[in-house]
């Protein structure tokens, strides 16, 4: 049996350092409470060396030079805890969520997958570092010993079975009573007895200790000896991938926002990669500054002050046709999306969530024709959409209607699935590889070029048939109609408001230099003549 414990010292500080890694070398204090009653909640090692301790007021620590202080962020702590769980889950399916800063995992059987126990412990520490957390990792034969070792010993520790008492002996007894009130009372007693470390506690006679301190004392002694036995309580954390940043000052420009989004996306992608997942949907939620909300809502109407005080939220959802896991691609897509749809007010909070999906298989078919890479294609489509507009780019789908222009645009996806390749395409691809050219079709269609919007024309009729046409929009389209075929009458949707009815004619018009073939339409509802397109 082997258990590993991941412990993040000064967890509130580490959660903040994930977003501001530049502060790692400085003294940092995390404050909690409402101004002006803010007190120090946690400090890092540098600040501790400078004499800053939890419980001090903000006024007291302001005198310390070179000390940075930040407000505690519950959101970022939750994200850091989720990242810690992801880190543990990437090594073992049996994970106990012991505390926000402590995770225990069962390593039974994992040596076959990940190598020897010291190697696993080192890999866990590296993975945690990739997720932005500096963690202590300890491996021991029982969970409690692993937790004590991780809390007390820096870096990576592997305690062989039977050596627990020896390796834990130098640790202070205070480690055993973290947060338990009853144990704290007992520790006072032990302190009075001169018991300072776990070796002293382990050396006490069992019966005498039991007579004086009861079962609690015996339990603490077993912990000190590394002899406790308990069952791991595994959790199955939900697959929620969210990251958030609360900003000290509102952001007004997209460039610094992109910098923060890059950090969030890197962390999200690391977490997804740790769980061997990708994402197909990114949800961005921005909380906007309230003063701008007042300006935008405030229309001089005094009846709406309450609504004006509420913070406005700005949502954008990025849906991808394929599962992707590339933070740079995501960042570029978000940047293009935000350029096209700016929030309109300063940003005070950023919340980014990814919907996890299984990654697409990397293997593609041998006979697949060339197609764009999905990441590049998404970026290209986003850039094209920024040039021509979102609704003007994509593949099209013909609707089941006879209404003119009965189609709609949809997202374009290149075909990447081998199974979706049809047999004719495969045979064509094989023929192509053999150097054969496919035969041209015999059924070539006379194509129509559509005028969008249709051009209004003046038409002269003779016995109900058009004989002369004049188009003010296209000066060259003016002349005698040499030939006309029609009318083809069609109508539809008469039971709705958007009903339509029309007559279509195919005409040949004598123009200055040539003969033009056109489709002429008469709208039967309003009587207008329209030139819908030209045959080409």
């Amino acid at each position, binding site marked *: 049996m082997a258990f590993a414990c991941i412990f993040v010292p000064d967890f509130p500080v580490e959660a903040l350092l994930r977003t501001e890694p530049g502060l790692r070398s400085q003294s940092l204090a995390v404050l909690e409470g409402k101004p002006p009653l803010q007190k120090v909640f946690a400090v890092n090692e540098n600040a501790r060396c400078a004499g800053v301790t939890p419980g001090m007021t903000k006024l007291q620590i302001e005198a310390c030079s070179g000390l940075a202080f930040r407000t505690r962020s519950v959101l970022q702590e939750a994200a850091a805890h989720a990242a810690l769980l992801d880190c543990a889950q990437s090594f073992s399916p049996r994970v106990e969520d012991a505390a926000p800063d402590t995770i225990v995992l069962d390593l039974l059987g994992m040596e076959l997958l990940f190598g020897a126990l010291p190697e696993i412990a080192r890999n866990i520490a590296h993975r945690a570092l990739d997720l932005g957390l500096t963690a202590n990792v300890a491996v021991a034969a029982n969970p409690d010993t692993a937790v004590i070792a991780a809390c007390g010993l820096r870096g990576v520790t592997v305690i062989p079975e039977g050596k627990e008492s020896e390796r834990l002996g130098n640790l202070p007894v205070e480690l055993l009573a973290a947060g338990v009130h009853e144990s704290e009372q007992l520790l006072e007693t032990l302190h009075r007895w001169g018991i300072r470390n776990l070796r002293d506690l382990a050396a006490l006679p069992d019966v005498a200790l039991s007579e004086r301190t009861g079962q609690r004392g015996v339990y603490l002694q077993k912990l000190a000896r590394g002899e406790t036995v308990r069952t791991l309580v595994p959790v199955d954390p939900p697959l929620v991938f969210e990251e958030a940043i609360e900003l000290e000052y509102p952001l007004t420009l997209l460039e610094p926002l992109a910098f923060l989004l890059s950090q969030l996306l890197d962390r999200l992608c690391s977490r997804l990669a740790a769980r061997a997942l990708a994402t197909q949907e990114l949800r961005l939620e921005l909380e906007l500054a309230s003063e701008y909300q007042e300006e935008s809502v405030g229309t001089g109407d005094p009846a709406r002050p309450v609504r004006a005080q509420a913070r406005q939220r700005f949502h954008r959802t990025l849906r991808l046709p394929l599962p992707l896991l590339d933070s740079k691609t995501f960042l570029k897509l978000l940047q293009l999306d935000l350029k096209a749809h700016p929030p309109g007010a300063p940003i005070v909070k950023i919340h980014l969530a990814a919907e996890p999906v299984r990654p697409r298989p990397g293997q593609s078919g041998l006979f697949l024709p*060339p197609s764009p890479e999905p990441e590049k294609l998404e970026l290209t489509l986003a850039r094209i959409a920024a040039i*021509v507009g979102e609704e003007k780019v994509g593949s099209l789908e013909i609707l089941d209607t006879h209404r003119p222009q009965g189609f709609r645009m949809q997202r374009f996806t290149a075909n990447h699935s081998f199974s979706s390749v049809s047999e004719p395409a495969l045979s064509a691809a094989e023929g192509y590889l053999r150097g054969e050219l496919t035969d041209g079709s015999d059924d070539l269609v006379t*194509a129509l070029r559509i005028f969008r919007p249709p051009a209004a024309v003046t038409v002269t009729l003779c016995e109900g048939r058009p004989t002369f046409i004049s188009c003010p929009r296209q000066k060259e389209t003016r002349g005698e109609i040499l030939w006309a075929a029609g009318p083809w009458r069609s109508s539809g949707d008469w039971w709705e408001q958007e009903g339509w009815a029309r007559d279509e004619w195919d005409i040949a018009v004598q123009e200055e230099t040539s003969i033009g073939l056109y489709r002429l339409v008469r709208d039967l509802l309003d009587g207008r003549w329209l030139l819908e397109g030209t045959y080409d």
Partner: protein
Amino acid sequence: MSSIPLFPTEAVRRPVASVVSNSPARVFERLAALPKLAEVTPASRLTVRPTPEMVSSGVREIDALTGGLPRGGLTEVCGPVSSGRTSLLLAVLAAATQRQEACALVDVSDAFDPVTAALAAVNFESMLWVRCKTNPPQRHRDTEKTNQKHEDPYRCRMGPPVEQALRVTDLLLQSGGFGLVIIDLGDVALKVARRIPLTSWFRFQRAIEHTPTVLFVVTQAPCAQTCAALLLKVKAAKKLSALSPQLSVLKTLSHAELLDGFRVETEILRSRIPRKPAQSATAAFVTKTVRAG
């Protein structure tokens, strides 16, 4: 540092005539023996440009005429209105999409008709349609300010749709992976189309070189000039051009009789692909109307 002599030292002392009398083969042998020049091919031994891979255009007559469309090259089709350019475009598009290649249509005038394209057997799932005839989307003020700092190479005397089309084509070609990219400049006025800088066509041609992409451009008159690997001119055949003096015959034509059997003639104006016969040749194909009756 000792250098390897190109000629033997005794040759230097000999009269010039005796050095010249060395056969070229011996000189090449000595050149090849030199370590630094071992991999250099002399200019006299350079081979001709490799023949590009050809792909079917979807029209048997044009395939017979040109051998297909060159991959990694620019094919330009020019012709006046109602000459059959778009019919040829649909045939090329249908052939490429049926091969399940990713295709892109940069529609400068937003003139693409999905109904006739569907009847021409174009597979829309493989086709990216970019409709350029639109007002550019509103941009953020920061972006606008940033853009103003740099000179816009596209902001010249062309209209917004052509500018957009050039930008979009650039993005598509740089992205790569498309088997066919079509720029439809068929409705763009000739004077506007000719304002497209030659550097743009060179850039496009350079971007698709050594790739499997076919760049297919439809215009009213040749624009890409020397960048086009294949330049085709299409025109309506005699049936349509002979209508005018035969009005009495014309009046008696039935519905769609004119459009059915619409004959299109194609002529090669320029081709970099070696073929036989080498001189200009023509081919004709017939299209059918989508209507019955």
